[in-house]
C-alpha cells in the first residue's frame, strides 16, 4: 500500500488501522510520517538514536490510540503532531503534558462525513498557505514549533532582536490568516 494521491486520504488509512488493525495501512502511514516525526525531534535537539526510538514510540502510540482518532476534530497530520509533541515534552524535556478534559458532550459516535472532509480540506489549505509564505516567515513559524525554543532562544539563533522576532511571527500568522480567508 503506497501513499494516497490526495493527502486528505490519510484519514481513511488511520480509520482502517482503527477498525481493522490493518498492517498495510499502518506501513503506509509509517513510511510517510515516521521520518517526519524523526526530523521534527532531531530539529528539537534530540540525538539521532533518541529521535529514532521516540519516532517508533510515536507510531506505536498511533496504533494503540487509533480508537481515539476523530476525523471530525483533527487531520491525521495534526493528530500525529500532538503525539510527537507530547513525546518530545515527555522524553526530551522531562515534563508531564497535562491534557484538557474532553468536551462535556463527548466524542460523537458517528461524525458527519462532510464535517470530516471540510476539516481535511481546511488543513490542506493551511499547508498550502504555509508553503506560499516568504522563506523567512515560514522559517520563523517552523522554529516556533520545532525547537524546544522560546522567542528568546530564536533570537539567539538568528541574531535578530526579540521585538523583531515577535513582530515578524505576528506578521507571518496574519498572512496565514489572510490566505485562509
Amino acid at each position, binding site marked *: 500500500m503506497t501513499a494516497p494521491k490526495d493527502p486528505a486520504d490519510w484519514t481513511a488509512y488511520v480509520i482502517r488501522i482503527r477498525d481493522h488493525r490493518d498492517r498495510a495501512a499502518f506501513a503506509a502511514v509509517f513510511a510517510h510520517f*515516521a521520518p517526519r516525526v524523526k526530523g521534527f525531534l532531531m530539529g528539537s535537539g534530540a540525538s539521532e538514536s533518541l529521535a*529514532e526510538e521516540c519516532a*517508533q514510540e510515536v*507510531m506505536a502510540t498511533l496504533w494503540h490510540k487509533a480508537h481515539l482518532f476523530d476525523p471530525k476534530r483533527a487531520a491525521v497530520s495534526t493528530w500525529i503532531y500532538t503525539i510527537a509533541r507530547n513525546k518530545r515534552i515527555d522524553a526530551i524535556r522531562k515534563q508531564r503534558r497535562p*491534557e484538557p478534559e474532553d468536551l462535556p458532550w463527548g466524542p460523537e459516535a458517528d461524525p458527519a462525513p462532510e464535517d470530516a472532509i471540510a476539516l481535511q480540506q481546511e488543513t490542506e489549505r*493551511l499547508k498550502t498557505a504555509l508553503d506560499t509564505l516568504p522563506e523567512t516567515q515560514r522559517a520563523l513559524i517552523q522554529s*516556533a*514549533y*520545532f525547537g524546544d525554543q522560546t522567542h528568546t532562544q530564536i533570537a539567539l539563533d538568528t541574531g535578530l532582536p526579540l521585538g523583531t522576532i515577535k513582530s515578524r511571527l505576528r506578521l507571518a500568522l496574519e498572512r496565514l490568516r489572510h490566505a485562509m480567508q
Partner: protein
Amino acid sequence: MTKIEHHLSEQMLMAHAAGTLPEAFDVLIATHISLCDTCRVLLETYETLGGAVLDAGEECAMGSDALTATLARIEAAPADVPARPRIRDAVFPAPLRDYVGGDADAVRWRPLGGGVRQARLKTAGGATLRLLNIPAGTAVPDHGHRGTELTLVLQGAFRDADDRFARGDVETANADLHHHPVAEAGVDCICLAATDAPLKFDGLIQRIAQPFLGI
C-alpha cells in the same frame, strides 16, 4: 455555566500548542481549556498549524528495520490506558485533579497570612504552580511581578481594578502590571496561579517572609 470573559492570549495558546512552556503554565492552560471552548478551538487551530509544519518539515530516514521494530513494540505494549473518570460538578477540571490527587476537598492548604491559604503543586520546568484560597471579601496582598503570572478562577470571583474574574476567567499579569485582586463577597475564591518568576510583595513583612513561605 457563566460566560467566560477573560481568555488566554493567542501567544500563550500557540506556545502551548508548540509545547514550549514550563509545565506549570501547561497545567493552567489545560485546566482553562477544559472550561473554555473558545480557547479550545484556537488551540486546535495552532495544533493544525503544527501538523502542517510537521508535514512540510525535513524528513530523516528511519533505520532499515524500524517498521518491524515498531510492530514488535506494538505487540509488547499494553493495549491502552483507561479513560479518566468523569466527576459531575467537580470544582477542579480533570487536568488539575491529576496534579492535586483529587478535587478541591483534597487540597492540603497552608496559611499565607490574612486568612489567605495556598498549596504549591509540584511541576517541572522552572515555573511555579499554586492554588490560592482567598476568603470572601478579602484582598490578596498587593504584589507586582518580575515575570508573567496567569491566574485562573475555579470558584467564587475576584475583582481587580475595573475587571471581574469568575470561574473559568484568566487574568494575565506581566512585569508592568501591579495588581490588587479582591475576592467578592459570597463564597471563598479559589484560584490557580502559574508564575515564571518569584512574586514581589510590597509589604516588608511579606518581603521578609517570602523565602520561607515559598511563594
